[in-house]
């Protein structure tokens, strides 16, 4: 049998990514890198919740239901740091705090919890406070943009004024322009 000439192997080529794939890669890249301590923190949180459920079940139930906006914010926030959750949680907790105190100062029993959770105003207060946190989170970049713009405008005005003074003192050619005189 005659020998066939050796066929050179085709080198593996990197296939160019389409736009959709590139966006997917970008999204993946935006996810926070897995941290070594992440699982441990979650474990501690779980232990804390279980301990709380065991020793103060009404408080645990009220907090789990009351802090839902913060938990949701923590879950949906894909940034390196969950700033949305950090913003919503303090106000969410502040909205929840009066009812926790009411629970703690009264009879710390499930019926109180049920009573509170069946009261629409309780829900309204807790979720409005969480909503305020969300509004702060949403509005603050606009406020910052406005402040920074004003700062830049101020600097620009100063530099323009300096240039005008130089032109007045030395003529347009000081900036490389034509001398009109």
């Amino acid at each position, binding site marked *: 049998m005659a020998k066939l000439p050796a066929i050179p192997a085709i080198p593996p080529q990197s296939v160019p990514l389409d736009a959709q794939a590139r966006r997917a890669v970008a999204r993946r890249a935006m996810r926070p890198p897995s941290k070594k301590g992440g699982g441990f923190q979650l474990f501690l949180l779980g232990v804390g919740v279980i301990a709380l459920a065991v020793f103060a079940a009404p408080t645990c139930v009220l907090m789990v239901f009351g802090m839902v906006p913060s938990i949701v914010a923590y879950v949906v926030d894909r940034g390196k740091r969950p700033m949305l959750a950090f913003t919503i949680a303090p106000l969410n907790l502040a909205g929840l*705090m*009066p009812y926790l105190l009411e629970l703690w100062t009264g009879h710390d029993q499930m019926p109180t919890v049920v009573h509170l959770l069946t009261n629409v105003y309780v829900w309204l207060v807790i979720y409005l406070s969480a909503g305020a946190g969300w509004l702060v989170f949403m509005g603050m970049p606009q406020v910052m943009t406005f402040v920074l713009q004003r700062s830049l405008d101020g600097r620009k005005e100063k530099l323009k004024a300096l240039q005008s003074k130089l032109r007045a003192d030395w003529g347009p050619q000081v900036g490389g322009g034509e001398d009109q005189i």
Partner: protein
Amino acid sequence: MAKPVASPGMKATSVRLHDRFEILYDVPLADLRSPTAQAFDVEDTRSVGGNFFALIADPTLPPRGQELGILRMMKHEAILTPIDFGPVDGVQDNRRCLALICERPAGGRLVAGNDQVITPWSDDEIIRRLIEPVFPGLKALSTENTTHRSIRPSNILFRDAARRHAMLGDCFTAPTAFDQPVAYETIENAMAMPTGRGVGTVSDDLYALGVTALHLLIGRSPGGGLKGDALIEEKIRRGSYAALCGEHRIPTILYELLRGLLVDDPAERWGIREIDLWLQGRRMAPKSPPSPPRASRPIELNGEQVFTARSAARALVRMGEQSIHILRGHTLEVWLQRTLGHKLSSDNFAIAVADVDDTNGAAGVHDARLLARVAMALDPTAPIRYRGLAVQPEGLGCALAVVMAQRGDLRPLAEILLGRLPQFWFRSQPLQKIDHPVLLIEFDRLRRLLEDHRPGLGIERLVYDANPLLHCLSPLIERDYVDQLNDLLPALERAVAGGMVDSMVVDRHIAAFAANRSKTLDDQVLSALGEADPATRLLGQIYLLALIQAQCGPATLPALAQLLGKQAKPVIERYRSRQTRARLEGQLAAVIAEGSLTRLVHLLDDLSERQADAQRYAQAGHQYSRAEAGLEKIEFERGQIGEGSKDMGALIAAAVSTVVGGIAIAMSLYHFGYL
């Protein structure tokens, strides 16, 4: 300075020179006037006993500057010498002229004109009344290394009333030998045009003295009625002595003298020493000069049969451009080498043709230069003949001055210098003199001067350099006859005050005149005058005039300061700082009112202020650039603001939320009694 005494609106009947000599224009002296100068009676206000008269020179002719100074110092009785001179208001045309005060000769003029027929003098009279009295003067001139060059019967005066002692008349109011008829000039000088005959030598004076003696001896102008070119041809053909004496019988006693003086070869012509010996009674046989080489067979040029190199040169010059094909051919060269057999002529011819192998200039100029060089090669002692001009190298400066004063065409004379024809003339001379190398260097300098077209140099400067006493020929002040730097600014002030100047005061003539007269003038000032930038040009003008004002005065020149000051805006705008400009413009009016150009210069061109201005301008430029970079950075930051404010907003939102939440919690705790 002369001050007219006549009332305004009337022509002055007298003017005063240097506050001493009152020149009486209403007393003209016809017997003492010369062709180029009117003569008037003079009253000496100091009255030291002299009897003076004034010669008012023709202002369109340059006087003999160097000789004037020498003659003034000489004060010889055998020569009319000026006692004082200077510009005065002229008798006509409302222009100033050079006035020369001389001691009035008692005996008047020998003849009114050179063609006047007189009773022939005896040989004894000629010796006693002419030769003996005049010779010491020529001797003195020879000692001073200068010449008279105006010896002719119509310029012979008598110093005594009895008319027994002759003296030489005016030789300084016009260019050298300007009025000399052909008969009284040597062949070479006679070929030159009247304005280009040059200073010459004492030998030329002695030749003229010989012709004058011959005139007196025969009672009429020598030359048998021939004039101009015809007489020159006759002199060339027969020799001066034979051509001038003709058939007249010369007395034995004068024969030797006239033979000696009328020799055409200057080397063989009698000099001061020979005449001195002759007057002492020693009789010498004049040498017969060798006749010029003559060809056995003629060459036909311009329809004439030519036997000598000199005749060939004259024929070629007469042919003009038509002779070029002969020069480029071989006929003439072969004739010179084989038929004439004169090695010097044929060698010179070869050099002349080789020298024009350069291709500088237009074809016409090139051909004219070739013809001039060949003419010099064939007839080395003749003047430079170029495009209808005939000029001795030493007479070039004077010829230029006359043409310039009369607004003629200067190009041919300039081409002579640019074509290095004088240098060729000196190299062609059969007898090299000790001053030739110096003159070669001088002509090279003049040529370089001519090629430098900056104001203050060029042909105008050349004219003033070559004519030391020439007045400034600027149209603005030409009528003022400004011949001294001291008089320049007052004349310009008058011209400006009279509304003759609109903008620039210093023209090329004024710049050249000032550069010639002022030895301290900086070359940079002349360069500034020629700059294209109007500010630099104006500053150059102000600098030049300020230097003269500082050197010669007067202290105030209001009209000039006003004229130059009101144009100073471009100069002030050389400063970049608007504040400096405003300050200078504010001070300008006060400086103009002072009339000091020096102050004007200091105001407009303060070096330290200009340096500081430039330094501050550079700093301002840097500041502006930094501001520009800052603005670009701001725009960049504005583009980045969305991303930054999002991150920072999140952080601040968290912080705000924490603080507000904390406060709310604290309030709740307080409300429930925990705090």
